[in-house]
């Protein structure tokens, strides 16, 4: 299972980085989402992998449990990355609508600063 999970994190990260290096905003945002998925899975695994174990201590009998803290961290990270993705989609949309171009780099004309 460790191998499967590590492969998943690796593939997600690689795909995310590849997409981030594209020149249009849409693939870049997709790449960012993939990266956040990768980091969420990775965070989840930092409490060690355990199957079928509850995330709470049992005070009646001594059974296996999994570390609840990474799960709380992942929840926070998911919420934050979700919000951030929404923000960047909005900003990228308005940038696209106001310049008719969804290239992510500043063109030479932008840098020249024509206020047209």
């Amino acid at each position, binding site marked *: 299972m460790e191998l499967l999970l590590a492969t998943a994190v690796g593939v997600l990260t690689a795909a995310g980085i590849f997409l*981030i290096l594209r020149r249009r*905003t849409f693939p*870049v945002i997709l790449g*960012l989402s993939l*990266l*956040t998925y990768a*980091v969420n899975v*990775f*965070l989840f*695994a*930092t*409490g060690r992998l355990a199957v079928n174990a509850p995330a709470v201590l049992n005070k009646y009998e001594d059974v296996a449990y999994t*570390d609840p*803290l*990474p799960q709380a*961290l992942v929840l*926070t*990270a998911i919420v*934050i*990355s979700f*919000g*951030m993705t929404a*923000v*960047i989609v909005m*900003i*990228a949309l*308005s*940038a696209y609508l*106001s*310049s008719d171009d969804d290239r*992510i*780099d*500043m063109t030479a004309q*932008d840098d020249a*600063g024509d*206020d047209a």
Partner: protein
Amino acid sequence: MNHWIVAPIILPALVAPFIIMVLRYHLDLQRIFSVAGTVGLLGIALTLLAQASGGEVMIYELGNWQAPFGIVLVLDRLSAMMVLITALLALPVVLYAIGSGWDTRGRHFHALFQFQLMGVIGAFLTGDAFNLFVFFEVLLIASYGLMTHGGGAERLKAGVQYVVYNLLGSTLFLFALGTLYAVTGTLNMADLAVRVAEIPAEDTALLRVGAVLLLLVFAIKAAVLPLHFWLPASYANAPLPVAALFAIMTKVGAYAILRMYTLVFGPEVANTAGLASDWLPIAAMATLAIGALGILGSRQIGRLVAFGAIASMGTLLISISLFTPQATSAALYYIVHSTFATALLFLVADLVMERQGREISAVKPMPQTGLIAALFFIGAIAMAGMPPLSGFIGKLLVMDAARSSTDYAFIWAVILISSFVTIVGFARAGTVIFWKSHDAAYNPEPDPDNDDEIMKEPAPEPYPIVAFASIFLLGIGLAALTLFSGPMMEYAQQTAEQLYNPAEYINAVFKGGQE
């Protein structure tokens, strides 16, 4: 437990939603509450500084959960000082935004401004690494709104780049925290400090990876070469009063490096020795050099000041990366100076940009040009580190502290040469903007059409006194920093001593609950 510690986070956290929900359509009331909130913050910051200057490390346990299980806020000399700088910077910036009318060019400026303050102050006060991430996100999401405030195609494009870069930084931050948690099983900074030192030396590979990832994240925030690429375009295209507030954001990165690499991965911890101190000085010197070159080469006034900010971060990080108490106290002095000098120059740049456009070129003289030129001059000599202002003292302290390093000759050469390049760059920009403009006006080009256009354009309204008063406030701040550099250095030295004695911090966090 000291309840004052949570107050500077709660106050903006309450003012901001109040402004959004109740005062949405009342700009005047928004302004009053925003300024009142900032003044209140300043009062709280002064109280905290008074409490922390005794030397005791105080903590606040959120929800009364004991460390390391709950999140703690920690107040020591360093965090009290950083909170005070934030409050001192916020007041002139918000006054300027009101005076120049920037807050009318889009909605929710004041609410976002308060959220931004909340995030920055939270990042300075927290004693928990994951909570640091959360406050980073709070300050970032507010900064995304402020950065694109007012709209416009270029600003939005620069905004997209800024957001993408910072989202990548956040992802990296999570990877770093995950790695550290996997190794140590904790994210409380004091607890991390204890556990990191205890890990057997042969098991530290993952720990060192985590520590370096964390350093990279903070280096992105602090705009250290080669991770500085986001800064010039973002700051130059942001509304410049917002860029002035962002002067504190790069300091958040510097603060986090200083905190983590003295407390958790300190110089005495063998497991992570040399991770930061090996290559950070080189990166910092490169940052300073590229900043100085950027100042020389900028064709836009916004970029000019943005590269000035990069150069001052370079000087600051050279001082931090030496990791000696003397160098750290010099860095603390320089943090204060660099924050105010950068903010002052951004505000002056905004005055110029509103009148002349953003290119550094000789157009026509603007109204109040003498006053603006004088303010630019003050900002430029402070930034370049010429006497008599605090930049000179700051650089002197940094260079004095660098004498303990083995390659101090190299550090001195980089600082001195780049200071010279900075002076040339600012002199060039100032000459073109303020002097050549007069030439252009009195010896107009022969083209008659062009002439008519110049004559027909109505002169822009002079700015109200509030805008100038806020810049003067920053100038007075710099002057005060120069005049009272003795007491300030004393405080900085005590702070550095406290930083290099992490046991105090750790003890305070662990026994705070029982008292």
